[in-house]
């Protein structure tokens, strides 16, 4: 049998993540793709815990924990230091959506504008899960969180972080899903060979925060793609390519109904989300066409 995913494991078993954690799976794939010559930088996020408390580490590569808003710039600092020491390696910032979309966006923008030579991976579980499910700017429209109660769910759409990175004209921006590991790994491997700021945004379902079943993690991540809620595409030097194109997008309801965070949605809400989703999807198709 030909394996499409590298066999090497650089993440130990037995981490302290929740059952069905998408973020944990994402890291496992990422290190398989990048290999041993990788430095990982983790700001405050679920992974600050998953990486293990002192004196343990769940990773077999050097790991630096840093402050919430600094994943990108600390990675740049590490890269600069390594370059001065003549060490050639990938420096990967590994941050959640809060540390990327919100508090970390300033430093990330600075790094991207300078095109510092780092790989930035945002594992997106669509809320502040580590602190107990508070809304972030990555939280989807109408979703419940502990700061957007069911009576007043999130009133604004998810921030389009990928377009923000594309606007920085960095060499590589990509989205990925833990349900499409070959695609994710291919993108990581491609990004590894590119010089400059590379940004990969991977959707990582969170059963705890999404109020979904742990065994639905893969299914949900796949449905997010198949409904076009989370399209899988890449932008290489400004050129868009949609990697996974559902011929007949599934209704968003199939994705939403498996998650308790959308339990309160009315029929109208679902209709609105459906319309927004398809409108955005068509826009993306046009971007691919015209880029």
């Amino acid at each position, binding site marked *: 049998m030909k394996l499409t995913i590298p066999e090497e494991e650089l993440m130990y078993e037995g981490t302290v993540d929740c059952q069905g954690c998408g973020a944990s799976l994402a890291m496992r794939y990422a290190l398989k793709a990048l290999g041993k010559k990788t430095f990982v930088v983790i700001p405050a996020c679920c992974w600050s815990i998953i990486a293990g408390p002192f004196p343990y580490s769940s990773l077999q590569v050097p790991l630096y924990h840093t402050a919430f808003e600094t994943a990108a*710039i600390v990675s*740049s*600092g590490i890269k*600069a*230091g390594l370059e*001065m020491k003549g060490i050639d390696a990938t420096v990967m910032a590994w941050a959640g959506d809060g540390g990327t979309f919100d508090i970390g966006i*300033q*430093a990330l923008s600075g790094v991207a504008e300078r095109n510092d030579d780092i790989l930035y991976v945002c594992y997106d579980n669509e809320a502040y899960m580590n602190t107990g499910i508070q809304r972030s700017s990555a939280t989807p429209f109408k979703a419940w969180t502990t700061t957007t109660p069911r009576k007043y769910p999130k009133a604004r759409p998810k921030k389009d972080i990928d377009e923000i990175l594309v606007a920085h004209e960095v060499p590589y921006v990509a989205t990925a899903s833990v349900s499409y590991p070959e695609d994710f790994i291919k993108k990581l491997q491609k990004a590894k060979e590119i010089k400059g700021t590379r940004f990969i945004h991977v959707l990582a379902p969170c059963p705890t925060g999404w109020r979904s079943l742990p065994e639905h993690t893969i299914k949900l991540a796949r449905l997010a793609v198949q409904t076009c809620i989370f399209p899988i595409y890449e932008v290489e030097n400004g050129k868009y390519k949609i990697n996974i194109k559902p011929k007949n997008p599934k209704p968003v309801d199939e994705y939403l109904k498996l998650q308790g965070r959308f339990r309160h949605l009315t029929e109208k809400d679902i209709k609105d989300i459906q319309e927004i989703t398809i409108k955005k999807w068509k826009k993306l198709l046009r971007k691919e066409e015209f880029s």
Partner: protein
Amino acid sequence: MVKKVIYGNHAVSYGAKDARAEVIAAYPITPQTQVVELLSEFCASGELNAKFIKVESEHSAMAACVGASATGARAFTATSSHGLALMHEMLHWASNARHPVVMANINRAMGPPWNIWTDQNDSIAQRDTGWLQFYCSTNQEVYDTTLMAFKICENDKVLLPGMLSLDAFVLSHTSEVVDMPPQEEIDEFLPPYNAKYKLDLEDPRAFGSLMFPDWYYELKYHQQTSMEEALKVVEKVGKEFGDRFGRHYGLVEEYRIEDAEIILVVSGTIAQTSKEAVDVLRKEGMKVGLVRMRTFRPFPKEKIRKIASKVNKIIVIDRSISFGSEGAFFTETKACLYNEKDRPEIWGVIIGLGGRDVTVEDITKIAKKGKDGKFKINEINWWGVKL
């Protein structure tokens, strides 16, 4: 040996260059800009082989230095006032992670209202971040302290970051003669930083992992003992520097205190001006001396106790204020004398906030008022406040 007439800011730049900083990350702020401008030129021309990351904020400047230092690289930055305040979180990070980052801070008042002139509230407000703090009073000392700071901070027994402060404009924009030793001699004094702990592919470890109460406390203990150790290292490095280059430095500079009955405790450029004041008063027959505070963290308690044991009166002059309390050097000086048997009388004066000029006449008047016992005790003595 090169002697040049240069700005205090450029003394910082030359210091960082001659120390062979490897990664520099900085963000411009008045009155620090000349530091980074000249360093950019050094890096661009290849005079200094370093990576210069032109970050989007001071917070990121310190974060980049933290990252670079974690790889064992010699990291440097410079800032001032609001820039330093923005760094606050990462100052803790650098210290708690035991990264010997060196930074120059141009002492500038905090706004609002906007004020670009000097006082020490910016750096004093960072007293508990675990950084060594040095206060300079000449451009020569700025250059020398930049070199020494790396050696002190990188010492195995210290491994803490260090900040040297210089007064806005009074040093930053003032040209003075600075003597810079040949590079080979500096390299002998300050060899490359060989980090004991660093991010390493061969020995992959996690830095800064979650630590429970069962061990965190011990780390804090070690941070404190390293600070205490730094007291000795500052003196040792200052002596070695002096033996090599002819300019000796210690935790404090004692000026004409041998038979003094009253001493002034001062830091920064006011301390330098105070030397002139001491000379004037000595000519008039007053037995006055000066203790110029070079270090604020670690605070040289033993040194102060020893000096205080021989005098009757101490006047501490602060160019900062901890609102609701008093001047920072005053608090510290008093505190370390509390358990002494023969304590001198001690008063605190606050002066020169926001860059108000402090003249020789101000200092002579302060000394005389102290001698006459006319200062208020247990209260702030404001100097020249318009009410």
